[in-house]
């Protein structure tokens, strides 16, 4: 690479931006392919993203990326301008995805500062010939390209009559004021209208005649540019739309109008309906299904800026400092006994703001799993095509948040697992039919918070694991260390995670090299997680990844024992109460127990366990907390409850971990006053 361009921040930015754009393109293409229709929105988005990549890669002198994006951009420019309806979605998606793959590959080279030697000629030729065939058809000239679907699908125009308009469309009124002295207000207004056509067909604007009427500029300057339109998008989206598309915007008033207002309005003046860009809606689709499309694309649309993680860490540290400083000011001993009414009022205000800030800062590092989950759509699509299997992917709980570091560690394992599920798990369609299963295999990806862990579950309804085969292979590789009869099903399945294990007889493109599952284990161990597998032969396999919440935010109950403070995840507390002397039981071996509603729980005195000096040793004076995990229960004895807080789990220092593994603790957390509280590990306390 040229030295001039090894400027790191620029390169970083390029990589970040391009990766984001590529992901966006991929998502839109996949959604569009599923719907078998490219919405104008999707086309625009892909066009825009490609354009951005083209621009930045040209600046960075990555010519091959630039040329690929250029040809795809051309293609989409044509599609956008001509509103071609007769697009073979599958073919188009293939082309774009090929392009995306090419760019991804080149991006990897960029990251490793290798030479970008990918040759895009073939790809560009493919795109060009496709574009030609499109153009040829549009001109009415016969084309030899048989790939293009020559049947023009039926158009579906939105009803012109307002009475028949969709119920879920609402009427909005937008009044736009441009910045003073921006000039050419009428042209700008026209620009807005042009963009508006992309999202709605029913609108009317005041002044009506923008371009030809000279007065329009004056009206727009004085009264603003008023647009009345119908749209099924919600307020937020529309607001963002106007803000995003309008340059020199000074003021935007966006109102939702009620039905009555609409009737009054539209009786006197007909709603102008443009017919230039009829929206084609595949007949089979119901309204509901269509409604989901903008929803999905919106969530991947969030406006995001990239920030160096180091800065975030720093911000978090500073936040901690600030909380301490706040406590030092507001709880200053010199203030004790002084009457300061307005001071306390301001101090409360400060406390509130710092509290909110702290919550915010803490949540910044948390990233929803959705991005990693969605990547799987592409994988499933590619693999099911290649392997001629029908697979449907369902995502559950993709909004579950985990720390950014953890996400990086689990992407690969997830990919392996989904790959395995399709390759080894799901059977060919005819096999599935033969055994009485639906033709389409199902893979479910689920994420959930359980206690102080996040579970990610990959479930398929394929053929399950053949125990005999696993055993055979294990025997062959000498992986079995105890008598085979003693092995439980679970132990047999877990053999799969040992290095050098693959039951697939043939090595396929996707799996079977024996390096899948042990990578999964390794990656998870790196973040302190674990993996387990369960299967019912013929019915499918369930793989569960258990990830600890290190650095994650949990709801915790703070308790005090002597001078020490501890935090228990609220989810594992069943109840807390003060014990009555009558309920306490002492067995002959000196074990203390407590009877609660006919059930007996062992008592664990925290002050004894952690050897903390405490004045409260009488069981009836302190507080009992019944904790529970996996149906095991225990009663903890502590001095008092301090309160419930959201806490960020921090790992204990590496130095201590090297010294000794403390099962009873998951980590520690900083309390509001800057002091440290140790987080108890429910599982560890219960001896699990």
């Amino acid at each position, binding site marked *: 690479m040229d030295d001039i361009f090894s400027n790191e921040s620029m390169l970083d930015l390029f990589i970040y931006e391009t990766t984001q754009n590529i992901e966006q393109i991929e998502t839109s293409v996949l959604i569009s392919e599923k719907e078998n229709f490219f919405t104008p929105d999707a086309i625009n988005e892909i066009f825009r993203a490609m354009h951005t990549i083209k621009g930045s890669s040209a600046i960075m002198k990555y010519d091959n990326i630039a040329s690929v994006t250029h040809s795809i951009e051309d293609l989409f420019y044509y599609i956008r301008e001509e509103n071609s309806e007769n697009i073979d979605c599958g073919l188009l998606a293939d082309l774009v995805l090929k392009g995306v793959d090419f760019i991804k590959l080149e991006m990897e080279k960029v990251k490793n500062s290798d030479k970008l030697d990918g040759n895009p000629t073939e790809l560009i030729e493919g795109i060009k010939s496709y574009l030609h065939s499109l153009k040829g058809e549009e001109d009415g000239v016969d084309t030899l390209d048989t790939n293009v679907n020559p049947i023009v699908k039926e158009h579906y125009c939105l009803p012109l009559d307002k009475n028949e308009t969709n119920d879920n469309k609402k009427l909005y009124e937008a009044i736009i004021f441009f910045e003073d002295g921006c000039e050419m207000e009428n042209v700008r207004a026209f620009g807005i209208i042009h963009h508006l056509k992309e999202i709605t067909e029913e609108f009317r604007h005041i002044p009506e005649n923008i371009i030809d009427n000279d007065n329009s500029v004056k009206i727009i300057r004085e009264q603003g540019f008023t647009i009345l339109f119908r749209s099924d998008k919600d307020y937020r989206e529309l607001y963002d739309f106007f803000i995003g598309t309008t340059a020199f915007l000074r003021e935007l008033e966006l109102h939702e109008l009620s039905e009555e207002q609409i009737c009054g309005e539209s009786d006197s003046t007909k709603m102008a309906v443009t017919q230039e860009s009829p929206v084609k809606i595949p007949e089979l689709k119901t309204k509901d299904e269509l409604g989901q499309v903008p929803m999905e694309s919106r969530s991947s649309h969030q406006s995001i800026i990239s920030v160096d993680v180091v800065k975030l860490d720093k911000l978090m*540290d500073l936040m901690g400092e600030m909380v*301490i400083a706040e406590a030092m000011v507001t709880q200053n001993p010199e203030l004790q006994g002084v009457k300061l009414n307005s001071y306390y009022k301001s101090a409360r205000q400060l406390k509130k703001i710092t509290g909110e800030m702290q919550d915010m800062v803490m949540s910044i590092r948390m990233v929803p799993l959705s991005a990693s989950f969605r990547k799987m759509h592409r994988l499933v699509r590619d693999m099911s095509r290649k392997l001629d299997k029908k697979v449907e992917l369902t995502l559950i709980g993709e909004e579950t948040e985990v720390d950014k570091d953890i996400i990086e560690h689990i992407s690969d394992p997830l990919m392996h697992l989904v790959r395995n599920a399709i390759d080894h798990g799901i059977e060919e369609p005819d096999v599935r039919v033969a055994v009485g299963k639906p033709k389409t295999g199902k893979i479910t990806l689920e994420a959930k918070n359980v206690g102080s862990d996040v579970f990610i579950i990959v479930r398929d309804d394929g053929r399950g694991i053949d125990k005999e085969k696993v055993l055979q292979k294990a025997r062959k590789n000498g992986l079995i260390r105890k008598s085979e009869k003693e092995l439980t099903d679970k132990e047999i399945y877990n053999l799969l995670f040992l290095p050098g294990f693959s039951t697939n007889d043939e090595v396929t493109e996707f799996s079977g090299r024996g390096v899948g599952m042990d990578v999964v284990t390794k990656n998870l161990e790196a973040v302190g997680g674990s993996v387990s597998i369960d299967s019912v032969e013929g019915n499918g396999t369930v793989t569960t990844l258990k990830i600890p919440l290190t650095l994650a935010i949990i709801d915790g109950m703070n308790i005090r024992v002597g001078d020490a403070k501890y935090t228990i995840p609220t989810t594992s507390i069943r109840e807390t109460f003060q014990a009555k002397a009558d309920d306490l039981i002492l067995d002959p071996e000196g074990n203390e127990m407590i009877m609660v509603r006919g059930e007996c729980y062992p008592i664990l005195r925290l002050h004894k366990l952690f050897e903390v000096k405490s004045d409260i040793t009488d069981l009836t004076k302190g507080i009992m907390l019944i904790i529970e995990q996996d149906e095991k229960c225990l009663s903890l004895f502590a001095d008092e409850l301090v309160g419930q807080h959201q806490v960020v789990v921090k790992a204990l220092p*590496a130095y201590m971990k090297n*010294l*000794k593994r403390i099962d*009873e603790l998951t980590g520690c957390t900083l309390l509001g006053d800057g002091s440290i509280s140790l987080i108890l590990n429910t599982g560890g306390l219960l001896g699990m």
Partner: protein
Amino acid sequence: MTKTDILNPSEMEYEDTLKGKYLVFSLGKEMYGMEIRYITEIIGIQPITEVPEMPKYVKGITNLRGKIIPIIDARLRFRKEIREYDGRTCIIVLEIDDISIGLIVDSVVEVLTMQDEDISSPPDVGKGHCNYIKGIGKVGGSITLLLDCQKLLTDDELEEINASL
């Protein structure tokens, strides 16, 4: 955080200027020296949260501007008698191989520059806490025991833990 004093960031560019500089601190009557490159900062005594099941010399953890660092009492680490912390007691924050630890010492004395010829190797007295000493510095008539910071983290610690249990 009353006595925050950042001595020198241990960045690569400063490597040369840091060479031969030792921070001298006292433990009882003895003076100990520690290569300055490992030292992040020196702070006053902080509230320390005890962590159970740790060896005695690990006093616990403390919150250093959002970063949680383990605190080791140098006296206990070198098997000296316990002494009450006072106004002179300091925590020296070290960063060794990306691991941060705080070391409680009686007081920080000065920063000394020692050339290689000022340092003699420790006498070989077999096993014992001489393991931590990698040299003996003689400057201006006084003797400074130079600590091997790497050894603070590793080596015979496992035995010590087992012994303390």
